């Protein structure tokens, strides 16, 4: 196995590991950190693939990934965590162990699906595809098993990372950069939207008039 393959596999593995470990975290801060690590490795993977495939596009993807996903988004997410005081553990809809076992099963399914479909593809693609599909499924699972909106966003972002991973692994995918930018814009809208939603929710619940109402009734 050449170095190209080995390193690409290793980075894919780390990304999958991060996605899997996100399932096992209760705290948002830890999940954000894992997401940041995931994005960093993804950026490195994009650079490496760009070097290996001699594609300028991929360098661009890596740069965008690094600047936005590994730096800007985690910073924003941390701000939200701080602002809304969600430092403590968030609620889970499923027990941790069940979520992790489900995650393992999903990875198994991803491998099962990818193996026969890509019987004739080259090895690099196969393993990368299996990893990418697993990351996507794990992100979806994360969105399902967490009640917190922010955790769901992280799940979505992680899922998107899986898609980008699949895209950069394919030789001859010319629109990776554009694709990822488009997705990012979408994501930014989503994040801002949920952000605003949360603010409104908080103002609703913190409304003073409600308190006054109760006070008056008490007399």
């Amino acid at each position, binding site marked *: 196995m050449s170095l190209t393959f080995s390193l690409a596999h290793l980075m894919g593995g780390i990304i999958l590991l991060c996605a899997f470990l996100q399932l096992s975290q209760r705290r948002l801060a830890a999940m954000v950190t894992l997401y940041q690590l995931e994005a960093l490795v993804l950026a490195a993977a994009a650079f490496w693939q760009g070097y290996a495939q001699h594609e300028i596009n991929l360098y661009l993807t890596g740069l965008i990934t690094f600047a936005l996903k590994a730096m800007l988004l985690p910073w924003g997410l941390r701000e939200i965590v701080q602002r809304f005081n969600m430092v403590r553990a968030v609620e889970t809809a499923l027990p941790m162990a069940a979520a992790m076992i489900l995650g393992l099963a999903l990875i*198994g399914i991803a491998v099962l699906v990818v*193996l026969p479909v890509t019987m004739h593809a080259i090895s690099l693609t196969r393993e990368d595809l299996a990893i990418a599909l697993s990351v996507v499924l794990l992100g979806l699972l994360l969105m399902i098993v967490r009640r917190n909106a922010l955790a769901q966003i992280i799940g979505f972002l992680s899922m998107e990372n899986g898609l980008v991973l699949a895209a950069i692994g394919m030789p001859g995918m010319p629109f990776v950069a554009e694709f990822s930018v488009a997705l990012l814009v979408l994501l930014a809208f989503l994040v801002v939207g949920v952000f605003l939603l949360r603010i409104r929710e908080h103002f609703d619940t913190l409304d003073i008039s409600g308190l006054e109402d109760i006070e008056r009734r008490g007399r």
Partner: protein
Amino acid sequence: MGNSIGLMFGLPGQGMHLHLDALSLLFVCILLPQTVAAALAGMRGSFTFWLFVLGMALALLAGDAFTLIFGFELMSAASWLLVMQGDARPATLYAGVAIFSGACLIPALFLPVSSLAFVLIALGAGAKAGLAPLHSWLPRAHPAPPAGVSALMSGGMVKVALYVLIRYAFVNLAPAAQPWWGVALVAAGALSVLIGALRAVLEVELKTVLACSTVEHVGLITVGLGLALYAKATGDAALSGLALQAALLCAVAHGLFKPLLFIGAGEVKHATGTTSLNWLGGLMRGMPRLGALMLLGAACMAALPLGPGFAPAFLLFHAAIGAAATGGILARIGFSGLLAVLGIGGALALAAAVRLIGLGFLGRPRSLHAAAAEDLRRGPYLAMALLGVLCTPVALVPGLILELLNPVIMLLAPQADAPPLSYAPLTLLLLAGLAALAAGFVQTRWGTRGLREVAAWNGGFGRPPAWLPFGDPHTQASATGFAEPVMRLLGKGLLGTTLADPAERFLLLPLFRLQTRLIRLAERVRRATIRERLAFVFAVLVAFLLALGLGQGG
């Protein structure tokens, strides 16, 4: 070794046939020492007991199906009587299981060689052996009779049921063997391992703990058998040899240490009047001989290295790895899961053994009876010592025992070819001896000799008041308390908060409900008016005509 003898009595015109081959001989050899031990432990005067032994011997030596069934049912009936003498409540459940297993076995023996016959045999023998999900009677019924009988039921009767399974799955039904037979056995065995080991950690009664551990060991043996069956059907010589070695060696070891532990539990009952771990403690002080023998037995139960339980576990792990290495992705995932289950089950068994010794025999007494216990009586002592001595060769020279098992393996899977055992207890013992020598040297050269007895430090807590001679029993971990972390993380998830066996929830309760529903239905039918009955007959007639018409139209 293919000796057959016909007996004078039996079915008219056919007689009964006894047949001795390597497989029967092995199981007779497993049965023999525990029978001697149980007789020594105080059962030799009981006629029912000898009937029970006779039934087992007949089943093992049977040369025809009738003799097999006759011996098997004699064994069931006699053990039912013995269970009834101890405790009438589980006896009914036990009788029900015995009837179920008979009802599965009898037709299976006369069916042509087919998968259906295998399923029936597995159900019948599995129910009798306490294989999950048909195991929930075992932790209730096995502790009920006197210790000698419990010993023989756990060590011997379960083996007879497994013998029937082996005899049919590997020999008589061999031409129709399918890989899924093995997979089914592996799944049932893995389930038994998990549930048996988990309940062994959680139960409080000493004898129930031992019975749950029997469920676990039956599971281990069955996993081995299942792997061997799978490997035999897929033509993997090394794997089938390895798995058979594991299963048979596990049967041998379990047949030695489980009776030992049960007889010891009986002595605990005799000396203290209870077997609840919450009322024992500190027995090592009053009963040092019993304590030492129980420690040996518990070390075997936990499959620790240098004990007889380790070599089978070692072989089984290797067999599971071998199975995971071959086959497709589903087999890979499944067998990795099996490995995880085996590892978790092994550690749970270790926790159960530590709990048994640590809470029952170490620490402070939790009741005056436990404090005043006196050591073993002569008969049970001899019985336990016999079994303990027989454990030694299995523990220290497992390679030799495996050589002796070779004819059986050749009989069961002629093409099997296991690699040599890479576990060398004697080497380990030698290295441990060297380390002990070095430690002794350092101690004599630089150390200070002597021990001084003082009050326990206990994190600075004061001495207990004078009216509590052993301190407050509530300040030491209870059996329930020791199991609490496991209960919290595994028990609740798998068994629910009430600790009811899932098998009871999913098998017995629905049966019970079905019965109630059937009774209600019968009552309704009985009370129906003439009009309703006529309507029923009419509806059936119309349905029949409709079916006929449709059938002809098609």
